[in-house]
Protein backbone atom coordinates (compact mmCIF):
# COMPACT_ATOMS: atom_id res chain seq x y z
CA UNK A 1 0.00 0.00 0.00
CA UNK A 2 1.37 3.49 -0.83
CA UNK A 3 2.63 5.36 2.23
CA UNK A 4 0.39 8.30 1.29
CA UNK A 5 -2.61 6.01 1.89
CA UNK A 6 -1.36 4.41 5.09
CA UNK A 7 -3.83 6.39 7.19
CA UNK A 8 -6.74 4.79 5.32
CA UNK A 9 -5.53 1.20 5.79
CA UNK A 10 -7.77 -1.12 7.76
CA UNK A 11 -6.69 -3.27 10.68
CA UNK A 12 -6.99 -6.27 8.41
CA UNK A 13 -4.55 -4.69 5.94
CA UNK A 14 -2.11 -3.53 8.61
CA UNK A 15 -1.98 -6.56 10.90
CA UNK A 16 0.04 -8.85 8.62
CA UNK A 17 2.75 -6.32 7.71
CA UNK A 18 2.97 -5.23 11.37
CA UNK A 19 3.37 -8.80 12.56
CA UNK A 20 5.99 -9.56 9.89
CA UNK A 21 7.81 -6.32 10.78
CA UNK A 22 7.44 -5.02 7.22
CA UNK A 23 5.75 -2.03 8.81
CA UNK A 24 6.31 -0.38 12.18
CA UNK A 25 3.61 0.78 14.59
CA UNK A 26 5.58 4.02 14.70
CA UNK A 27 4.92 4.59 10.98
CA UNK A 28 1.24 3.75 11.37
CA UNK A 29 0.74 6.01 14.37
CA UNK A 30 2.74 8.86 12.79
CA UNK A 31 0.54 8.63 9.69
CA UNK A 32 -2.56 8.96 11.88
CA UNK A 33 -1.06 11.87 13.83
CA UNK A 34 -0.15 13.67 10.59
CA UNK A 35 -3.72 13.20 9.51
CA UNK A 36 -4.94 14.67 12.80
CA UNK A 37 -2.65 17.66 12.38
CA UNK A 38 -3.84 18.16 8.82
CA UNK A 39 -7.58 17.99 9.52
CA UNK A 40 -8.36 18.78 13.14
CA UNK A 41 -8.57 22.56 12.79
CA UNK A 42 -10.86 22.23 9.75
CA UNK A 43 -13.16 19.46 10.97
CA UNK A 44 -13.10 19.86 14.76
CA UNK A 45 -12.25 16.31 15.79
CA UNK A 46 -10.22 16.38 18.99
CA UNK A 47 -10.94 17.45 22.54
CA UNK A 48 -7.53 16.18 23.71
CA UNK A 49 -4.81 14.92 21.39
CA UNK A 50 -2.29 12.78 23.29
CA UNK A 51 0.35 12.72 20.58
CA UNK A 52 3.48 12.22 22.69
CA UNK A 53 1.86 9.47 24.71
CA UNK A 54 0.79 7.79 21.47
CA UNK A 55 4.32 8.02 20.06
CA UNK A 56 5.73 6.42 23.21
CA UNK A 57 3.17 3.59 23.05
CA UNK A 58 3.92 3.07 19.35
CA UNK A 59 7.64 2.74 20.10
CA UNK A 60 6.82 0.26 22.84
CA UNK A 61 4.63 -1.75 20.44
CA UNK A 62 7.43 -1.72 17.88
CA UNK A 63 9.86 -3.05 20.47
CA UNK A 64 7.46 -5.77 21.62
CA UNK A 65 6.86 -6.98 18.07
CA UNK A 66 10.61 -6.89 17.42
CA UNK A 67 11.05 -9.20 20.43
CA UNK A 68 8.47 -11.59 18.99
CA UNK A 69 5.76 -10.57 21.47
CA UNK A 70 3.06 -9.86 18.88
CA UNK A 71 -0.28 -9.59 20.68
CA UNK A 72 -2.72 -9.87 17.79
CA UNK A 73 -4.43 -7.76 15.13
CA UNK A 74 -4.81 -4.64 17.30
CA UNK A 75 -1.11 -4.46 18.16
CA UNK A 76 0.16 -1.06 17.05
CA UNK A 77 -3.25 0.05 15.74
CA UNK A 78 -4.19 3.72 16.36
CA UNK A 79 -7.50 4.30 18.13
CA UNK A 80 -9.39 7.38 19.29
CA UNK A 81 -11.91 7.56 22.14
CA UNK A 82 -15.13 9.51 22.40
CA UNK A 83 -14.46 11.83 25.33
CA UNK A 84 -16.82 9.85 27.51
CA UNK A 85 -14.28 7.04 28.02
CA UNK A 86 -11.80 7.18 30.87
CA UNK A 87 -8.14 7.08 29.93
CA UNK A 88 -6.00 7.22 33.06
CA UNK A 89 -4.32 10.59 33.49
CA UNK A 90 -6.28 12.35 30.73
CA UNK A 91 -9.42 14.44 31.40
CA UNK A 92 -12.81 12.94 30.56
CA UNK A 93 -14.81 16.07 29.76
CA UNK A 94 -18.00 14.50 28.36
CA UNK A 95 -18.02 17.59 26.15
CA UNK A 96 -19.05 19.73 29.12
CA UNK A 97 -17.40 22.35 31.33
CA UNK A 98 -19.02 20.57 34.27
CA UNK A 99 -16.61 17.64 33.82
CA UNK A 100 -13.63 19.60 32.53
CA UNK A 101 -11.57 19.06 35.68
CA UNK A 102 -12.18 15.33 36.03
CA UNK A 103 -9.03 13.27 35.45
CA UNK A 104 -9.55 9.53 35.96
CA UNK A 105 -6.93 7.37 37.61
CA UNK A 106 -8.04 4.21 35.83
CA UNK A 107 -8.84 3.25 32.24
CA UNK A 108 -12.38 2.29 31.25
CA UNK A 109 -12.52 -1.50 30.99
CA UNK A 110 -12.85 -1.44 27.21
CA UNK A 111 -9.90 0.96 26.95
CA UNK A 112 -7.82 -1.27 29.21
CA UNK A 113 -8.69 -4.26 27.02
CA UNK A 114 -7.81 -2.36 23.84
CA UNK A 115 -4.46 -1.37 25.32
CA UNK A 116 -3.88 -4.91 26.52
CA UNK A 117 -4.40 -5.99 22.91
CA UNK A 118 -1.68 -3.51 21.90
CA UNK A 119 -3.82 -0.66 20.55
CA UNK A 120 -2.33 2.84 20.70
CA UNK A 121 -4.63 5.62 21.92
CA UNK A 122 -4.33 8.86 19.93
CA UNK A 123 -6.61 10.96 22.11
CA UNK A 124 -10.17 11.97 22.95
CA UNK A 125 -12.61 13.12 20.29
CA UNK A 126 -15.68 15.35 20.25
CA UNK A 127 -19.24 14.41 21.10
CA UNK A 128 -22.66 15.88 21.59
CA UNK A 129 -22.65 17.34 25.12
CA UNK A 130 -22.95 14.44 27.59
CA UNK A 131 -23.78 12.22 24.60
CA UNK A 132 -27.36 13.50 24.73
CA UNK A 133 -28.18 14.38 21.14
CA UNK A 134 -28.01 13.00 17.60
CA UNK A 135 -26.26 15.84 15.77
CA UNK A 136 -22.74 15.89 17.23
CA UNK A 137 -22.87 19.69 17.45
CA UNK A 138 -21.67 20.86 20.86
CA UNK A 139 -21.68 24.53 21.96
CA UNK A 140 -18.77 23.89 24.32
CA UNK A 141 -16.39 22.32 21.85
CA UNK A 142 -15.01 22.80 18.38
CA UNK A 143 -17.62 22.74 15.63
CA UNK A 144 -17.39 19.19 14.31
CA UNK A 145 -18.09 19.07 10.58
CA UNK A 146 -19.05 16.27 8.24
CA UNK A 147 -16.06 15.36 6.05
CA UNK A 148 -18.29 14.77 3.00
CA UNK A 149 -19.66 18.31 3.21
CA UNK A 150 -18.33 20.62 5.93
CA UNK A 151 -21.60 22.55 6.00
CA UNK A 152 -23.35 19.44 7.32
CA UNK A 153 -23.44 17.74 10.72
CA UNK A 154 -21.35 14.65 11.43
CA UNK A 155 -24.20 12.99 13.33
CA UNK A 156 -24.03 12.17 17.01
CA UNK A 157 -23.57 11.79 19.63
CA UNK A 158 -20.23 10.19 18.69
CA UNK A 159 -19.57 12.86 16.05
CA UNK A 160 -15.80 13.12 16.43
CA UNK A 161 -15.58 9.34 16.20
CA UNK A 162 -17.37 9.28 12.85
CA UNK A 163 -15.18 12.03 11.41
CA UNK A 164 -11.93 10.51 12.73
CA UNK A 165 -12.57 7.08 11.22
CA UNK A 166 -13.92 8.46 7.93
CA UNK A 167 -10.84 10.64 7.41
CA UNK A 168 -8.13 8.19 8.44
CA UNK A 169 -7.37 9.54 11.92
CA UNK A 170 -6.90 6.10 13.42
CA UNK A 171 -8.48 2.81 12.36
CA UNK A 172 -11.01 2.73 15.19
CA UNK A 173 -12.89 5.15 17.36
CA UNK A 174 -14.78 3.99 20.41
CA UNK A 175 -18.27 5.48 20.58
CA UNK A 176 -21.34 4.98 22.71
CA UNK A 177 -24.92 4.38 21.65
CA UNK A 178 -27.97 5.10 23.82
CA UNK A 179 -30.44 5.81 21.02
CA UNK A 180 -28.27 5.58 17.91
CA UNK A 181 -25.10 7.48 18.84
CA UNK A 182 -22.70 5.02 17.19
CA UNK A 183 -24.86 4.19 14.18
CA UNK A 184 -25.96 7.74 13.29
CA UNK A 185 -22.44 9.22 12.90
CA UNK A 186 -21.34 6.00 11.20
CA UNK A 187 -24.18 6.47 8.70
CA UNK A 188 -23.65 10.18 8.12
CA UNK A 189 -19.85 9.91 7.86
CA UNK A 190 -19.74 6.68 5.81
CA UNK A 191 -18.15 4.26 8.30
CA UNK A 192 -19.05 0.97 9.91
CA UNK A 193 -20.60 1.19 13.40
CA UNK A 194 -21.20 -1.74 15.71
CA UNK A 195 -23.61 -1.61 18.64
CA UNK A 196 -23.24 -5.00 20.27
CA UNK A 197 -25.81 -6.67 22.53
CA UNK A 198 -26.57 -4.84 25.77
CA UNK A 199 -24.13 -6.09 28.40
CA UNK A 200 -21.61 -7.52 25.92
CA UNK A 201 -19.19 -4.60 26.15
CA UNK A 202 -18.52 -3.17 29.59
CA UNK A 203 -19.81 0.29 30.45
CA UNK A 204 -17.34 0.64 33.34
CA UNK A 205 -15.36 3.86 33.04
CA UNK A 206 -17.68 5.24 30.35
CA UNK A 207 -19.74 8.18 31.60
CA UNK A 208 -23.42 7.15 31.44
CA UNK A 209 -26.36 8.85 29.84
CA UNK A 210 -29.05 6.25 30.50
CA UNK A 211 -27.88 3.19 32.38
CA UNK A 212 -30.31 0.72 30.90
CA UNK A 213 -29.87 1.87 27.29
CA UNK A 214 -26.13 2.65 27.08
CA UNK A 215 -24.06 0.52 24.68
CA UNK A 216 -20.34 1.17 24.11
CA UNK A 217 -18.91 0.05 20.77
CA UNK A 218 -16.56 0.78 17.87
CA UNK A 219 -16.70 2.74 14.63
CA UNK A 220 -14.33 1.31 12.00
CA UNK A 221 -13.61 1.38 8.26
CA UNK A 222 -14.55 -2.26 7.70
CA UNK A 223 -16.79 -4.94 9.15
CA UNK A 224 -13.93 -7.28 9.93
CA UNK A 225 -12.20 -4.47 11.82
CA UNK A 226 -15.32 -4.10 13.96
CA UNK A 227 -15.13 -7.83 14.67
CA UNK A 228 -11.49 -7.53 15.72
CA UNK A 229 -12.38 -4.80 18.20
CA UNK A 230 -15.41 -6.71 19.45
CA UNK A 231 -13.27 -9.78 20.08
CA UNK A 232 -10.77 -7.73 22.07
CA UNK A 233 -13.19 -5.90 24.34
CA UNK A 234 -16.37 -7.98 24.71
CA UNK A 235 -16.91 -10.20 27.71
CA UNK A 236 -17.83 -10.23 31.35
CA UNK A 237 -16.57 -7.43 33.59
CA UNK A 238 -17.07 -7.35 37.34
CA UNK A 239 -16.85 -3.54 37.25
CA UNK A 240 -20.12 -3.35 35.30
CA UNK A 241 -23.18 -4.75 37.11
CA UNK A 242 -25.03 -5.17 33.80
CA UNK A 243 -22.14 -7.00 32.14
CA UNK A 244 -23.21 -10.29 30.59
CA UNK A 245 -21.66 -13.49 31.95
CA UNK A 246 -22.35 -15.34 28.69
CA UNK A 247 -19.29 -16.62 26.82
CA UNK A 248 -18.14 -14.62 23.79
CA UNK A 249 -17.27 -16.52 20.61
CA UNK A 250 -14.25 -15.60 18.49
CA UNK A 251 -16.27 -13.64 15.96
CA UNK A 252 -13.54 -12.41 13.61
CA UNK A 253 -12.23 -15.93 13.09
CA UNK A 254 -15.70 -17.26 12.34
CA UNK A 255 -16.56 -14.75 9.61
CA UNK A 256 -16.73 -16.16 6.09
CA UNK A 257 -18.91 -13.59 4.33
CA UNK A 258 -21.34 -16.33 3.34
CA UNK A 259 -25.04 -15.70 3.94
CA UNK A 260 -26.40 -18.62 2.01
CA UNK A 261 -29.50 -19.94 3.73
CA UNK A 262 -29.80 -17.10 6.21
CA UNK A 263 -33.21 -15.40 6.49
CA UNK A 264 -33.62 -11.63 6.62
CA UNK A 265 -36.68 -9.51 7.31
CA UNK A 266 -37.02 -5.97 6.02
CA UNK A 267 -38.69 -4.23 8.95
CA UNK A 268 -41.69 -2.34 7.55
CA UNK A 269 -41.94 0.00 10.55
CA UNK A 270 -38.50 1.34 9.64
CA UNK A 271 -39.45 2.23 6.07
CA UNK A 272 -41.58 5.22 7.04
CA UNK A 273 -40.65 8.74 5.92
CA UNK A 274 -37.44 7.73 4.17
CA UNK A 275 -35.93 10.21 1.68
CA UNK A 276 -36.34 8.84 -1.85
CA UNK A 277 -32.63 8.72 -2.63
CA UNK A 278 -31.84 6.93 0.65
CA UNK A 279 -34.71 4.50 0.03
CA UNK A 280 -33.38 3.69 -3.45
CA UNK A 281 -29.92 2.96 -2.02
CA UNK A 282 -31.42 0.78 0.70
CA UNK A 283 -33.52 -1.18 -1.82
CA UNK A 284 -30.43 -1.72 -3.95
CA UNK A 285 -28.53 -2.96 -0.89
CA UNK A 286 -31.27 -5.48 -0.14
CA UNK A 287 -31.11 -6.68 -3.73
CA UNK A 288 -27.34 -7.07 -3.45
CA UNK A 289 -27.76 -9.24 -0.37
CA UNK A 290 -30.42 -11.31 -2.17
CA UNK A 291 -27.93 -11.98 -4.92
CA UNK A 292 -25.45 -13.07 -2.22
CA UNK A 293 -27.91 -15.79 -1.18
CA UNK A 294 -29.81 -14.11 1.64
CA UNK A 295 -33.52 -15.03 1.76
CA UNK A 296 -35.31 -11.73 2.17
CA UNK A 297 -38.96 -10.93 2.89
CA UNK A 298 -40.81 -8.06 4.50
CA UNK A 299 -41.91 -8.29 8.13
CA UNK A 300 -44.09 -6.06 10.27
CA UNK A 301 -43.92 -5.72 14.05
CA UNK A 302 -46.55 -3.13 15.02
CA UNK A 303 -45.18 -2.92 18.58
CA UNK A 304 -42.10 -1.21 17.12
CA UNK A 305 -44.20 1.92 16.63
CA UNK A 306 -44.21 2.40 20.40
CA UNK A 307 -40.43 2.46 20.64
CA UNK A 308 -40.07 6.27 20.55
CA UNK A 309 -42.40 6.73 23.55
CA UNK A 310 -40.71 3.99 25.56
CA UNK A 311 -37.21 5.13 24.64
CA UNK A 312 -37.94 8.73 25.59
CA UNK A 313 -39.44 7.73 28.94
CA UNK A 314 -36.40 5.66 29.88
CA UNK A 315 -33.62 7.78 28.43
CA UNK A 316 -34.94 11.12 29.63
CA UNK A 317 -35.83 9.91 33.13
CA UNK A 318 -32.51 8.10 33.67
CA UNK A 319 -30.60 11.05 32.23
CA UNK A 320 -32.61 13.52 34.31
CA UNK A 321 -31.93 11.56 37.48
CA UNK A 322 -28.22 11.39 36.71
CA UNK A 323 -27.95 15.11 36.11
CA UNK A 324 -30.40 16.38 38.74
CA UNK A 325 -27.76 17.79 41.07
CA UNK A 326 -25.85 19.58 38.32
CA UNK A 327 -29.11 20.89 36.85
CA UNK A 328 -29.84 22.39 40.26
CA UNK A 329 -26.36 23.76 40.93
CA UNK A 330 -24.91 24.61 37.52
CA UNK A 331 -27.74 24.96 35.00
CA UNK A 332 -25.86 27.72 33.15
CA UNK A 333 -23.09 25.26 32.28
CA UNK A 334 -25.31 23.23 29.95
CA UNK A 335 -26.00 24.03 26.32
CA UNK A 336 -29.61 25.03 25.74
CA UNK A 337 -30.72 21.90 23.88
CA UNK A 338 -29.24 19.39 26.32
CA UNK A 339 -30.38 21.35 29.35
CA UNK A 340 -33.99 21.43 28.19
CA UNK A 341 -34.04 17.67 27.50
CA UNK A 342 -32.47 16.87 30.87
CA UNK A 343 -34.87 19.20 32.66
CA UNK A 344 -37.78 17.53 30.94
CA UNK A 345 -36.40 14.17 32.03
CA UNK A 346 -36.07 15.33 35.63
CA UNK A 347 -39.76 16.27 35.60
CA UNK A 348 -41.07 12.92 34.35
CA UNK A 349 -43.19 11.07 36.93
CA UNK A 350 -41.96 7.67 38.11
CA UNK A 351 -45.17 6.15 36.75
CA UNK A 352 -44.15 7.06 33.23
CA UNK A 353 -40.63 5.74 33.65
CA UNK A 354 -42.02 2.40 34.81
CA UNK A 355 -44.45 2.37 31.90
CA UNK A 356 -41.49 2.92 29.60
CA UNK A 357 -39.70 -0.10 31.01
CA UNK A 358 -42.92 -2.15 30.78
CA UNK A 359 -43.34 -1.09 27.16
CA UNK A 360 -39.77 -2.16 26.57
CA UNK A 361 -40.60 -5.65 27.88
CA UNK A 362 -43.68 -5.74 25.66
CA UNK A 363 -41.67 -4.74 22.58
CA UNK A 364 -38.98 -7.35 23.36
CA UNK A 365 -41.73 -9.96 23.68
CA UNK A 366 -43.25 -8.90 20.36
CA UNK A 367 -39.89 -9.42 18.64
CA UNK A 368 -39.42 -12.92 20.08
CA UNK A 369 -41.43 -14.43 17.22
CA UNK A 370 -39.48 -12.39 14.70
CA UNK A 371 -36.20 -13.86 15.86
CA UNK A 372 -37.60 -17.36 15.36
CA UNK A 373 -38.47 -16.63 11.74
CA UNK A 374 -35.53 -14.42 10.80
CA UNK A 375 -31.80 -14.48 11.46
CA UNK A 376 -31.43 -10.75 10.87
CA UNK A 377 -33.48 -7.64 10.17
CA UNK A 378 -32.55 -5.04 7.55
CA UNK A 379 -33.41 -1.34 7.62
CA UNK A 380 -32.04 2.05 6.58
CA UNK A 381 -29.89 3.26 9.49
CA UNK A 382 -30.99 6.87 9.10
CA UNK A 383 -33.85 7.93 6.80
CA UNK A 384 -31.92 10.87 5.39
CA UNK A 385 -28.40 11.93 4.49
CA UNK A 386 -26.50 14.35 6.74
CA UNK A 387 -28.56 17.49 7.43
CA UNK A 388 -27.10 20.98 7.20
CA UNK A 389 -25.57 22.47 10.35
CA UNK A 390 -28.08 25.33 10.21
CA UNK A 391 -30.89 22.78 10.64
CA UNK A 392 -29.38 20.98 13.65
CA UNK A 393 -31.81 22.41 16.19
CA UNK A 394 -34.97 21.57 14.22
CA UNK A 395 -36.96 19.01 16.18
CA UNK A 396 -38.23 17.32 13.01
CA UNK A 397 -34.64 16.81 11.83
CA UNK A 398 -33.56 15.41 15.19
CA UNK A 399 -36.53 13.08 15.39
CA UNK A 400 -35.84 11.70 11.92
CA UNK A 401 -32.18 11.09 12.77
CA UNK A 402 -33.14 8.72 15.60
CA UNK A 403 -36.31 7.29 14.04
CA UNK A 404 -34.82 3.88 13.16
CA UNK A 405 -32.14 3.47 15.79
CA UNK A 406 -33.81 3.77 19.20
CA UNK A 407 -35.75 0.52 18.84
CA UNK A 408 -32.56 -1.53 19.00
CA UNK A 409 -31.39 0.07 22.24
CA UNK A 410 -34.69 -0.98 23.77
CA UNK A 411 -34.28 -4.50 22.40
CA UNK A 412 -30.63 -4.60 23.47
CA UNK A 413 -30.09 -6.36 20.14
CA UNK A 414 -26.82 -6.23 18.20
CA UNK A 415 -26.79 -4.00 15.14
CA UNK A 416 -24.18 -3.07 12.59
CA UNK A 417 -24.37 -0.04 10.30
CA UNK A 418 -22.50 -0.35 6.98
CA UNK A 419 -22.13 2.19 4.15
CA UNK A 420 -24.58 1.41 1.32
CA UNK A 421 -24.00 4.10 -1.26
CA UNK A 422 -24.10 7.82 -1.89
CA UNK A 423 -26.89 10.26 -2.63
CA UNK A 424 -26.71 12.47 -5.72
CA UNK A 425 -25.22 15.16 -3.44
CA UNK A 426 -22.33 12.82 -2.60
CA UNK A 427 -23.43 12.06 0.94
CA UNK A 428 -23.22 8.54 2.42
CA UNK A 429 -26.21 6.35 3.20
CA UNK A 430 -26.20 3.35 5.51
CA UNK A 431 -27.71 -0.10 5.85
CA UNK A 432 -28.37 -1.56 9.31
CA UNK A 433 -28.21 -5.28 9.98
CA UNK A 434 -29.79 -6.22 13.31
CA UNK A 435 -29.90 -9.61 14.97
CA UNK A 436 -30.82 -11.68 17.97
CA UNK A 437 -29.38 -10.81 21.36
CA UNK A 438 -25.84 -12.20 21.68
CA UNK A 439 -25.66 -13.16 18.00
CA UNK A 440 -23.17 -10.54 16.84
CA UNK A 441 -21.57 -13.21 14.66
CA UNK A 442 -24.56 -13.49 12.30
CA UNK A 443 -25.05 -9.72 12.19
CA UNK A 444 -21.43 -9.21 11.21
CA UNK A 445 -21.58 -12.11 8.73
CA UNK A 446 -24.39 -10.43 6.80
CA UNK A 447 -22.71 -7.03 7.04
CA UNK A 448 -19.47 -8.55 5.74
CA UNK A 449 -21.24 -10.23 2.83
CA UNK A 450 -22.68 -6.88 1.81
CA UNK A 451 -19.36 -5.11 2.23
CA UNK A 452 -17.59 -7.70 0.07
CA UNK A 453 -20.16 -7.29 -2.69
CA UNK A 454 -19.69 -3.51 -2.82
CA UNK A 455 -16.93 -0.92 -2.52
CA UNK A 456 -18.74 1.87 -0.72
CA UNK A 457 -16.55 1.47 2.36
CA UNK A 458 -13.50 2.29 0.24
CA UNK A 459 -14.78 5.71 -0.87
CA UNK A 460 -12.89 8.63 0.68
CA UNK A 461 -14.31 12.00 1.70
CA UNK A 462 -13.06 15.05 -0.25
CA UNK A 463 -10.81 16.47 2.45
CA UNK A 464 -7.42 16.30 0.67
Amino acid at each position, binding site marked *: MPSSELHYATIEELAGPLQRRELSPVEVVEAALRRAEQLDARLGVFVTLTAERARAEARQAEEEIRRGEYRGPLHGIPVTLKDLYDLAGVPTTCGSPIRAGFVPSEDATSVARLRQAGAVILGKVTLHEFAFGPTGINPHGPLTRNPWDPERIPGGSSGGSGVAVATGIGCVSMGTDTGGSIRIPAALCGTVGLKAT*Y*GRISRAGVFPLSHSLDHPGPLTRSVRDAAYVFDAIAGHDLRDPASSPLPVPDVAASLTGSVSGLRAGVLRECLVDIDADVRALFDAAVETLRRCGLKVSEVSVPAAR*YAPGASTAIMFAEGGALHQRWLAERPQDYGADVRSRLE*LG*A*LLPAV*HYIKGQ*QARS*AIIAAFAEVWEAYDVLLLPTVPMAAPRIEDQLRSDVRNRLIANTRLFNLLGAPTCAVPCGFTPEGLPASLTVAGRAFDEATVLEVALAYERATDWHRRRPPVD
Partner: protein
Amino acid sequence: MSRITIETVRQLAAVVGIRPDEDQLAGLARGLEATLAAIERCDELGLAQHEPAATFQLSGGATDAEL
Protein backbone atom coordinates in the same frame (compact mmCIF):
# COMPACT_ATOMS: atom_id res chain seq x y z
CA MET B 1 -57.14 21.59 27.45
CA SER B 2 -53.57 20.83 28.40
CA ARG B 3 -53.04 19.19 31.78
CA ILE B 4 -49.46 20.55 31.99
CA THR B 5 -49.37 24.29 32.53
CA ILE B 6 -46.46 26.58 33.16
CA GLU B 7 -47.44 26.51 36.82
CA THR B 8 -47.34 22.69 36.81
CA VAL B 9 -43.79 22.82 35.47
CA ARG B 10 -42.80 25.35 38.13
CA GLN B 11 -44.18 23.13 40.86
CA LEU B 12 -42.61 19.92 39.54
CA ALA B 13 -39.29 21.69 39.12
CA ALA B 14 -39.46 22.90 42.70
CA VAL B 15 -40.08 19.34 43.90
CA VAL B 16 -36.92 18.05 42.20
CA GLY B 17 -34.91 21.17 43.01
CA ILE B 18 -34.19 22.48 39.53
CA ARG B 19 -34.76 25.96 38.12
CA PRO B 20 -35.67 26.09 34.45
CA ASP B 21 -35.34 29.56 32.91
CA GLU B 22 -38.64 31.44 32.89
CA ASP B 23 -38.61 31.76 29.10
CA GLN B 24 -38.28 27.98 28.81
CA LEU B 25 -41.29 27.07 30.95
CA ALA B 26 -43.83 27.13 28.14
CA GLY B 27 -41.64 24.92 25.95
CA LEU B 28 -41.08 22.51 28.81
CA ALA B 29 -44.82 22.32 29.45
CA ARG B 30 -45.49 21.47 25.80
CA GLY B 31 -42.63 18.96 25.75
CA LEU B 32 -43.74 17.27 28.94
CA GLU B 33 -47.33 17.06 27.70
CA ALA B 34 -46.22 15.44 24.44
CA THR B 35 -43.82 13.07 26.20
CA LEU B 36 -46.42 11.89 28.69
CA ALA B 37 -48.91 11.33 25.87
CA ALA B 38 -46.39 9.25 23.88
CA ILE B 39 -45.66 7.09 26.90
CA GLU B 40 -49.33 6.66 27.71
CA ARG B 41 -50.01 5.47 24.17
CA CYS B 42 -47.84 2.48 25.12
CA ASP B 43 -50.78 1.32 27.28
CA GLU B 44 -52.12 -0.11 24.00
CA LEU B 45 -49.41 -2.77 24.34
CA GLY B 46 -51.20 -4.22 27.36
CA LEU B 47 -48.60 -3.07 29.83
CA ALA B 48 -50.25 -4.76 32.82
CA GLN B 49 -49.03 -8.09 31.44
CA HIS B 50 -45.42 -7.00 31.35
CA GLU B 51 -42.92 -6.49 34.13
CA PRO B 52 -40.57 -3.52 33.78
CA ALA B 53 -37.43 -4.50 31.87
CA ALA B 54 -34.41 -5.02 34.09
CA THR B 55 -30.80 -4.72 33.06
CA PHE B 56 -29.81 -8.15 34.40
CA GLN B 57 -32.39 -9.74 32.11
CA LEU B 58 -31.20 -7.78 29.10
CA SER B 59 -27.58 -8.66 29.62
CA GLY B 60 -27.66 -12.38 30.07
CA GLY B 61 -30.72 -13.71 31.76
CA ALA B 62 -32.84 -12.79 28.77
CA THR B 63 -34.21 -16.11 27.55
CA ASP B 64 -33.47 -19.79 27.91
CA ALA B 65 -32.78 -19.97 24.18
CA GLU B 66 -29.95 -17.49 24.48
CA LEU B 67 -28.48 -19.36 27.41
